[in-house]
């Protein structure tokens, strides 16, 4: 179903974060963003920006959800920051209630989304972050669903 792709280069963690802010402002409640990329590629930095774009108070530090698996924050839409790093078995996805969250009304950002079974989420945006050098990253957006294509067009002019 993947049918539309665009890429962008960011040259610092701040630029990656700023792109997150931009997407946070544009994104509709209910959207799921699947994030893939190595340790240290900037997935959490992106979500920190996304949270600011979703108008989550600066009083909340957006920290890694690896240990807690799902962190929730109140904002323009509720943000569910999910990390599947510790998930070993698809059955555990049910145990953490991920199905309810991705079908809910919040914005869900899922780190280590490559661990999800195929077709676990229907319409969503996939963001793949690849390290270019110490500070630069290539961010590639893939749309799954028509509305997501419109969103990508707004993100990457």
């Amino acid at each position: 179903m993947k049918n539309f792709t665009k890429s962008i280069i960011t040259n610092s963690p701040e630029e990656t974060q700023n792109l997150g802010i931009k997407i946070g402002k544009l994104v509709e409640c209910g959207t799921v963003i699947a994030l893939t990329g190595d340790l240290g590629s900037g997935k959490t930095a992106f979500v920190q920006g996304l949270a600011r774009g979703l108008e989550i108070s600066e009083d909340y530090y957006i920290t890694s959800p690896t240990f807690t698996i799902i962190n929730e924050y109140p904002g323009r839409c509720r943000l569910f920051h999910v990390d599947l790093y510790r998930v070993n078995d698809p059955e555990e996805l049910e145990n953490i209630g991920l199905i309810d969250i991705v079908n809910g009304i919040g914005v869900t950002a899922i780190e280590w989304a490559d661990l999800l079974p195929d077709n676990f989420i229907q319409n969503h945006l996939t963001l793949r972050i690849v390290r270019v050098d110490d500070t630069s990253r290539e961010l590639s957006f893939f749309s799954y669903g028509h509305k997501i294509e419109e969103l990508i067009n707004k993100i990457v002019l």
Partner: protein
Amino acid sequence: MLILGIESSCDETAAAVVKDGKTILSSVVSSQIEVHNPYGGVVPELASRKHIEAIAPVVKEAITESGININQLDAIAATRGPGLIGSLLVGFSFAKAYAFALGIPWTGVNHLEGHINSVFLGPESPSFPFIALLVSGGHTSLYYVKSHIEFQLLGQTRDDAAGEAFDKVAKMLGLGYPGGIVISSLAEKGDPEKIKFPRAYLPSTPLDFSFSGLKTSVNRYIQINENYKDHVPDIAAGFQESVVDVLSKKVLSAANQKGCDQVAIVGGVAANKKLRERIKNDASRKGISVYIPSIELCGDNGAMIAAAGYHYIKKGIFSELDCDVYSRVNKKIQK
């Protein structure tokens, strides 16, 4: 006063009976009683909804071990947050129903305040005010502790928790996950000065922490050095040294800023031998006393929730039946 404490904020389902916020009559943690699990098998690491299977047997075990009759309980305390909502709800709802059925008061406790109160469950405890460093897989924060239930957050991690960095570095080195304990034992055989990893001191918010850059730096080292497998103990030691340096400097700097001559180290990473030794050493040179709970009270447990709950109840802070759990706290610590 006898309090039943229930904890289910993350992986562990735990319950304990504690007398007067001080004396542990029983403390049961699900991962330690697998053999008693009537559903058989190992309780999966990602417990969340699986907490449902563990909660009743764990509470029952805690009551039995304590030697009391449930009718002797004066109140119940359960973790209200922060944590995984699905997991928190199990312990929290169980506590509500249990208290309602027994006709006794109950209270929702902040998990982080529970950890801080774990330092009062040992033979020696600090007097107020003191500085607490909470360091675990999910948290790394500094508090100025004014009483059992009054805390000022001085700083916290902006990205990864220290315990998480340990576990992720272990996985990078092929030592499995979670592998924080493996890292510390390997580090004992390595040279901490051989590989210098970065330390994030964050000059603009000097009591905050950041371990994400350190994690990335270890990852880069492994990618660049093909022969890294020949000196894994040195990598482990260099990494641990960086974490311990930052934690020790910041906790003592907080003590200095607040004019405190006592600090407490709590949470899962407080079990790390090197961290315990380093902070005690550095602190003694400055005339600061260090309090660290016993190893079994460093990880998540019900006794610390009962201890904090005792002080809530004593102050008349009770929870109502419509009280809900929460995932995150903002900088103004939530009550």
